[in-house]
């Protein structure tokens, strides 16, 4: 599904140039559940963002289902994100001014489908993560775990083929973290490809493959033998 070839990303600020990623080669097949691990600042988020097309590589090739999209026009990328990708962030990134239901509906806001279908899908997604009863609340009225589940609902409401999760359990306690991992596991079992950044070895264990990074490079990629 995804092929990254000699991919790099540097950030140029006024004085210094930071190499966040340098020469990444990575392939993710459809249906995989990949965990990315590594010390803080090693480029995990950068890599995930590039996979999610919300950041662009400085160099190298990014093939998504065979098409090189490293330099694709912005509009095409927006379309790709809209139709194929789902995001979950460590800091939830819910919009405070909108209710939970409205936040979840945002996952479909840029697709054209009958309003009724949208409503049904939103309800189903909220049900699935168990926050339907809080749908009229605003994000700041919910606990962290509930907020993250709402964020997951928003990510999956569009039924994406690829879900990208950046430390989805980073701000959660053990119990809430376990719940979130359960949901991700189920989604993978249902066929979604998942790439997840995590600092927790036990959560990484749930994934089928773990990629270790250090200083913008991939150290190893180990497939879990079940």
């Amino acid at each position, binding site marked *: 599904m995804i092929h990254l070839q000699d991919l790099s990303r540097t950030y140029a600020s006024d004085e210094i140039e930071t190499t966040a990623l340098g020469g990444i080669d990575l392939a993710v097949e459809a249906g995989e559940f990949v965990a990315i691990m590594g010390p803080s600042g090693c480029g995990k988020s*950068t890599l995930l*963002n590039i996979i*999610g097309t*919300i*950041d*662009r590589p400085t160099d190298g090739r990014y093939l998504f289902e065979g098409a090189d999209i490293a330099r694709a026009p*912005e*509009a095409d990328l*927006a*379309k*790709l*994100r*809209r*139709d194929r*990708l789902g*995001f979950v*962030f460590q*800091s939830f*990134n819910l*919009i*405070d*001014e909108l209710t939970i239901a409205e936040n979840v509906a*945002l*996952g479909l*806001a*840029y*697709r054209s489908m009958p309003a009724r279908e949208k409503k049904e899908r939103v309800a189903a997604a909220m049900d699935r993560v168990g926050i339907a009863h809080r749908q009229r609340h605003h994000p*700041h009225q919910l606990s962290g775990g509930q907020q993250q589940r709402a964020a997951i609902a*928003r990510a999956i409401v*569009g039924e994406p083929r690829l879900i990208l999760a950046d430390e989805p359990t980073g701000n959660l306690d053990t119990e809430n973290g376990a719940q979130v991992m359960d949901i991700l596991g189920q989604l993978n079992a249902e066929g979604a490809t998942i790439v997840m950044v995590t600092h927790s070895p036990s959560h990484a264990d749930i994934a089928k493959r773990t990629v270790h990074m250090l200083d913008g490079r991939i150290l190893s990629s180990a497939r879990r033998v079940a």
Partner: protein
Amino acid sequence: MHAALLTLYRSLARHRLYAILNIGGLALGVAVFLVLFLFVRFETGYDRVLPGWERVWKVERSIQFPGNPRFQIPSSPELLAQLRAAFPGLVGVRMTPYDTATVLTGQSSATARLALVDPGYFRIFPSPVLEGDIASTLARPDGIVVTRMVAETYFGRASALGRTLTVARDGKPAVYRIGAVIANLPANTTYVSDLFAAMPARPAADEQSAGYGVTTFLSLPDAASAERIATFIRRHPDPGFNADSIKFLTEDITPLADVHLADRRSRTVVTVLGTVGAVALLLAMLNYVNLATARAGMRAREIAMRKVLGATRGMLVVQLLGEALVAVTLSALVGLTLAEIALPFVNAIGGTGLMLVYWGARSILPALAALVALVTLLAGFYPAFVISRFQPAAVLAAAQTPGGDRTGARVRKALVVLQFAIATSLMIGTAVLVAQARHVQNADIGFGRDGLIIVNGFGDRALDPAQRTELATAIRAIPGVAAVTTSGIVPGGGSFAIGKMHRAGATGDPPMIVQGTVGAAFFETYRARLIAGRLFDPARFALDIGNGEKDPPARLPNVILNRTAVRRLGFARAADAIDQVVARDAGAVRIVGVVDDMRFGTPRDPVDALAYSYRPDGGYRSVQVVRTAGDAALILARIETLWHRIAPAVPPAAVTVDQKLYESFYRQDVQRSRLFMIGAVLAVAIGCIGLYGLAAFDTARRVKEIGIRKTLGASTTDVLRLLIGQFLKPVLIATMIAVPLAYYAMEHWLAGFDDRVALSPWLFVGAVMLAASIAVATILGQTLRVARSEPARALRYQ
């Protein structure tokens, strides 16, 4: 306090954009307000600079014939004596409404305003005497009081006292000896003059016949005596009027201070400009409120920490109001500077003489201090109230800075709507003013106004017949002069009579019709449009003059009517009037032609009903009107050169008709419109500053949200549509408020014009589109930047 100021300074320095928008916008508002405030104070302060103005009353006399506008007419020279007989001890003075006189020096002549006044004039209108003595000067028939400006013009720095001036009034030169020099009169004085001489006890015989009149002023101690005098005047109308006209005569007294703005339309102008000033300031205050509350979120942490450290809400409100006071004071100072810089420009294009006075009785400083206090309270209170309400726990616990609560957002949106409604209304108003100003200067007014020159010097009685003939011949010979005519009635005034005309068999009051005299080729020179019958005809001039009904066989004089006169006389069609005989007090006349209305007067009033009679010399005090084929300015200059050679003692007083109409009727409207326009444009700019600031804060606050939306697949276009749409909604609501408001206001204003533009919907569409485009342009830059940014970067944004 010191620490608080330091915090304020740091916060302003850190949020530089905020500081510039906030203080700059408010300063602009203060500047517009100050300038227009000065204008209003200038206009409403007319004659109030005069010591004792409260006691001065003016005798008003006006006449209004049915269907005609009201004419102000001077009062009878005998009135004051009659009043004194009835009210012994009454203090009053008379002056001739100033007359153009000619000051003759060896080689050249210049016009000056000459007032003939009673000896006590300067006791009611005191003026600082720079040198000499007024009483002894006005006691002599050859004494003259001059203003400082006149003294400096003719005698430079040297003392003018005892020097002589040769002044020709109505062509009769007389030598006057300067006995006193007074200070120049303040600009907002109604009764001004350059020269003051004693009024002769009896007017010369020819002046009496010409309707010699004076303006009479009374100094009355209280309202009760004013009422007594007014009653007396109303009960004793001037016996000099015949029984027919006396019905239409109004005599009364009015306070001097009310004279300048007696016309409702001038009051409207002052009100409108004052409102524009207040509105500009209001917009700036709304900006302040908007920006301050929008920024509130950014200060939430600071405020929360202060509360944690023990500050009460009251203390915070005081702190925030203090900050507002500093910001407003700063803005007021910048605004004052802006106003000072702008005033010369405003005065030049607005024809005003406004200035900022800092010390003394007319100092602007107390008003400015009051303004600062008021703006601080009005603009500072709501933000202080909102910001000080933050709950510390909620703020400090939140991972993100709060974006302000929902009511805050709603208030901001409502204020934006209000601002935009005002801005759009002003824009529509400006469009209509411009359209109307264009219209009155270019519309078809019934004659070809371009290339016409009026030579008023021909009406001067100083011109002797030989000079007249020589000038007439010489002007006709100037290359480029296409036609020449002579008439008593001309654009912008001239001399004419007004009287009844009745048609046989007509019922009701006979209409009052202006009767003008014209010479040969009048209609041809003006390019008037003949509607029915014929024009005066060189082959039939003897017929056109008539010989009076009494010399048999009676040949009635012929007249040509304008369209309005035909209608007023009750003829259904112009053709019906031809060959009809109508009666006048001065004898019957026969109608031989009808021409289209020619607008010689103001666009504000309807065209007079007019009957033209033929006179070989153009009639009483007739002047020449020249139609030029070439460059009018060049021909004007040649006429003046000729004139100075042939009749050096008489001012030529030649102007183009365009100039004459502009000076008499359009100039004030054009200048006031310009003031309005400046105010309106700046008010819109202030609104835009607010919108820009709000867009800046709003988009900054929404950067993260935009990042999320893009992550979820929104394209740049989607985001742009969202952000701009969100700003256009208030613009749309504002338009719906502004259009009817502006329509109503401008209809009201245009109702003051007889010759007016139609309120085309395009004016509205254009103005609204312009307002909307300005709004979009204002927010587009920031919106684009945010919409284009990489989502990953946006998500990092805090």
